[in-house]
């Protein structure tokens, strides 16, 4: 039995994978926004560094390798790359040197995307100039749909990411559950929340129940977060997006609406469209649940947390990283 989910790291950390070994095989899916950032996108950011553009991003993206190094390495060599925690920090920081040209490399799923939307609102209000958005934001439901549509995919049930669900609510998952006729459980991230979700998943799988069980009902509402969804609608429209190892998935990205193209990095730097690179690792197979990390021929050899080949090893949330760290 398989569960495709985003809780890999937590499951490993709490040792739950072993606990449930006899009942379910827990495999990992496209669960981390860093994990799925394509090599082309990293290369575009590295290109911007070389143009003297300041890059803002979340710390997580710093060590994702492109074809020629990482943002962290660029910074070590003198590029102006700044880690932020709350996207609104950027406004304040830009005010200090208002003539500096900067790009915010916005990564994240539906959980993070509303925050980027509010940053855009604040850029307008604050009058900050020279700040552009490069949206690498992605949507989870289209990715799940792509995975489950793959005839090779042997996933029996799906543990849904609780914090994405916090924003988008239960409905998108209900539709998918019905379409693919598989049980879905929305899960939180503490050991207890995961145990509760796994109990329910096991129950649904053994009893053959189809539908969505919200095992994180303390936080996830049916309708999600209306104001966050409103912010998403105001600033973004859906677009095709490239996922590392899964290639382009239809409607799986958030791109800035035309009205905001003046702060779109892709509009300011049309050269970015020309930069495309192909992925070097079989991460896609891992993400689809077709390959166990340990079975990748690079695993632990040329690919390890210090010198990660693919983003599944890069992100501490990545499935390969998790397996590497917690293997016994």
């Amino acid at each position, binding site marked *: 039995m398989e569960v495709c989910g*985003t809780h890999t790291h937590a499951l490993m950390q709490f040792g739950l994978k072993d*606990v449930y070994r006899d009942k379910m095989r827990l495999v990992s899916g496209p*669960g*981390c*926004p860093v994990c799925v950032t394509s090599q082309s996108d990293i290369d575009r950011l590295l290109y911007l560094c070389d143009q003297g553009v300041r890059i803002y991003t*979340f710390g997580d993206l710093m060590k994702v390798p492109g074809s020629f190094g990482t943002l962290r390495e660029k910074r070590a060599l003198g590029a102006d790359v700044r880690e932020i*925690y*709350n*996207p*609104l920090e950027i406004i304040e920081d830009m005010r200090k040197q208002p003539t500096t040209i900067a790009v915010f490399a916005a990564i*994240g*799923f539906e*959980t*993070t995307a*509303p*925050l980027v939307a*509010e940053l855009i609102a604040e850029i307008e209000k604050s009058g900050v100039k020279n700040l552009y958005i490069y949206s690498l934001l992605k949507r989870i439901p289209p990715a799940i749909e792509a995975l489950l549509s793959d005839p090779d995919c042997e996933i029996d049930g799906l543990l849904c*990411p609780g*914090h*994405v669900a*916090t*924003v988008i609510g239960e409905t998108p998952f209900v539709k998918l559950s019905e379409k693919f006729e598989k049980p879905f459980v929305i899960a*939180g*991230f*503490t*050991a*207890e*929340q995961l*145990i*509760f979700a796994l*109990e329910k998943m096991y129950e649904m799988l053994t009893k053959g129940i189809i539908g969505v069980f919200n*095992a*994180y*009902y*303390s*936080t*996830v*509402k049916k309708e999600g*977060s*209306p*104001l*966050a969804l409103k*912010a998403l609608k105001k600033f973004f429209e859906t677009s095709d997006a490239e996922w590392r190892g899964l290639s382009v998935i239809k409607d799986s990205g958030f791109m800035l609406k035309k009205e905001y193209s003046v702060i779109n990095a892709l509009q300011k730097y049309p050269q970015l469209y020309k930069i495309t690179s192909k992925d070097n690792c079989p991460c896609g197979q891992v993400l689809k649940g077709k390959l166990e990390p340990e079975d990748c021929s690079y695993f632990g050899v040329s690919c390890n947390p210090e010198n990660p080949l693919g983003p599944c090893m890069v992100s501490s*949330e990545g499935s390969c990283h998790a397996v590497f760290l917690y293997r016994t």
Partner: protein
Amino acid sequence: MCLAVPLRILEVNGNKALAERFGVKLEIDVRFIEGLKVGDYVLVHAGFAIQKVDMDSAREIEKAGERLGKYLGK
């Protein structure tokens, strides 16, 4: 993915609020939360509250841990 923690609201000032967790106090952005009151719990991601948390339900869910403990004989 999408790290988020529940915090308790101490003060609300428009879009901003002072929130707390075990003595750690920080300013968060609460623009996505309607009808927020002091004492409410919210889930915070990258400095933004993205949803209210119902603590009674949360405690209910937590009990699963105890059940597993029993199952494993601890």
